[in-house]
């Protein structure tokens, strides 16, 4: 049995039996910052006169939110992030390398039992490989860069026990958003979320990361996946969900807690599709989109953008023919990174448009235009919508997935 979250906290804090609610100080193994926060970190270093970091080899700066900067202000901020990395000798991941969380996974930065913090809420993705990984604001990140330490309030554990076996096109995101819709954030807020059950134990690395990524959407502080029966949390509040026979989940605007079954959303006209973001831009996500779009054309009047999560995913998708299929179908494939997720690089949705995207959030204005409605779904559903110009029925989805 691997370390529990409490084991990691005990080891990294020196407190032998940490209990929920205690405030403890812990050592940090890795720290990373994305391009939207690095310039503010640089400003805070200068303002407070900090002139060194605890270990530059353990700190990364990632250019992922504004890879192709859409305006002069953001481009200048990206250059400040680059200069900040150079000034302190930090690890620098230039634009096109990919989204911080996914590159960190590829680079082995989320070592099992390590403490990893990032200036981005989706740092919880690192829970997939057994790291204690959580997002923090930039002051906390700057403090840890200087001291090599941070603090946390020891979280209570909340376990979600998953039973049943769904059809193969059901993805972890369909399950996570269903749990959110049923329970809201309240049971998870500030807690450590542990997913368990046979289906969870069988998830491969890509799907495990896809599930851990969404912990923050449930309000959790951090996340881990029980990989064996022995890993399951004990004596903790348990929520159960039976996923046998569930349909894909679609989230209505303006928040992921407004999630419903595909059948209840089918038929909604879609004007723009974005496949990407740290939730759903791994190779499998690109491949399923390509398999649906191969030999077809996206619907007239629909714009479809796909952004691979990392440069490695992009290169593999190119080798395996996915990119050719996507481009031939009329998809705009952009350099690896966060893509259109937060309106900090193209494309921004048109006013009055309805967007279907594989992102993890659909808050009003999320993609840079408060006058667009944003719906969320898995890559397969999004690609199917791009083909038919509306949210598909289950039958339409299955037909597009399997019939050629």
């Amino acid at each position, binding site marked *: 049995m691997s370390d529990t979250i409490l084991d990691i906290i005990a080891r990294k804090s020196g407190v032998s039996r940490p209990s929920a609610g205690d405030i403890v100080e812990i050592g940090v193994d890795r720290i990373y910052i994305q391009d939207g*926060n690095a310039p503010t970190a640089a400003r805070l270093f200068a303002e*407070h*006169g900090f002139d060194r970091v605890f270990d530059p080899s353990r700190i990364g700066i990632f250019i992922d939110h504004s890879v192709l900067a859409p305006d002069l202000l953001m481009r200048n*901020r990206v250059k400040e992030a680059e200069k900040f990395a150079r000034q302190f000798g930090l690890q620098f991941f230039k634009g096109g390398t990919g989204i911080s969380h996914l590159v960190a996974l590829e680079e082995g930065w989320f070592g099992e039992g390590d403490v990893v913090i990032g200036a981005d809420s989706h740092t919880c993705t690192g829970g997939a490989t057994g790291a204690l990984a959580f997002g923090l604001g930039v002051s906390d990140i700057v403090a840890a860069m200087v001291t090599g330490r941070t603090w946390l309030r020891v979280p209570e554990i909340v376990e979600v026990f998953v039973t049943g076996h769904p059809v193969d096109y059901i993805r972890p995101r369909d399950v996570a958003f269903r749990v959110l819709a049923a329970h809201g954030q309240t049971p998870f807020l*500030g807690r450590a979320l542990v997913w368990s059950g046979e289906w969870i134990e069988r998830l491969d690395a890509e799907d495990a990361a896809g599930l851990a990524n969404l912990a923050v959407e449930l309000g959790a502080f951090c996340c881990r996946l029980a990989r064996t029966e022995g890993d399951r949390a004990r004596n903790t509040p348990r929520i159960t969900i039976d996923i046998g026979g569930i349909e894909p989940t679609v989230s209505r605007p303006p928040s992921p807690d407004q999630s419903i079954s595909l059948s209840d959303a089918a038929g909604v006209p879609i004007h723009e599709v974005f496949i990407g973001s740290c939730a759903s831009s791994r190779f499998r996500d690109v491949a399923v989109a390509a398999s649906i779009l191969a030999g077809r054309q996206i619907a007239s009047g629909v714009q479809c953008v796909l952004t691979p999560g990392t440069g490695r995913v992009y290169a593999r998708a190119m080798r395996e023919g996915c990119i050719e299929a996507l481009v031939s179908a009329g998809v705009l494939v952009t350099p690896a990174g966060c893509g259109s997720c937060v309106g900090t690089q193209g494309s921004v949705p048109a006013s009055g448009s309805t967007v279907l995207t594989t992102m993890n959030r659909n808050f*009003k204005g999320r993609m*840079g235009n408060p006058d667009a409605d944003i719906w969320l779904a898995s890559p397969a559903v999004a690609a199917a919508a791009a083909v038919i110009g509306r949210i598909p029925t289950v039958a339409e989805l299955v037909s597009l997935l399997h019939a050629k």
Partner: protein
Amino acid sequence: MPNSFDELRVRRIQGIVSTDDILPARIKHQHVDPKEFAKHVFSAHTPGFAGTLRSGDILVADSIFGIGSSREQAVTALLAAGVAAVLAPAFGTIFFRNAWNSAMPAIEIDLPDLREGETVRIDLVHARLTGARGATAFRAPPPLLLNVLKAGGLLASISASGAAE
């Protein structure tokens, strides 16, 4: 930084609030100066709201406040717009830390009986909010956070402690 705040003006906020609602990402990526952020507070959520904020306002929310993104700029934007504190039944985990780290109290309180525009007083040490219709207790902030507030924020407290030397 004081332990009590007088003459605070209540501004009610309804529903779950995300950090995207408080400050759009695009603005965060364009600027580093909180004064720039302040102009865009709640610009997608409630257009025009930023212009009505003044120094000494407090936001009183009726649901979870500050879910989603880790952007601390949502806090510094509110501070620069004059917001002295945020009160809510619960907070997004990261937002809660960011608020105290930036020397803005985030107070966990169950739906106080407060009206838009009324004047209140907050006593952090005794964890009490006093308005026109009496006093309401709230969850006492941990001493660690009160110390951070007293120092003027997390980084100021680190500078002062010599931990950066």
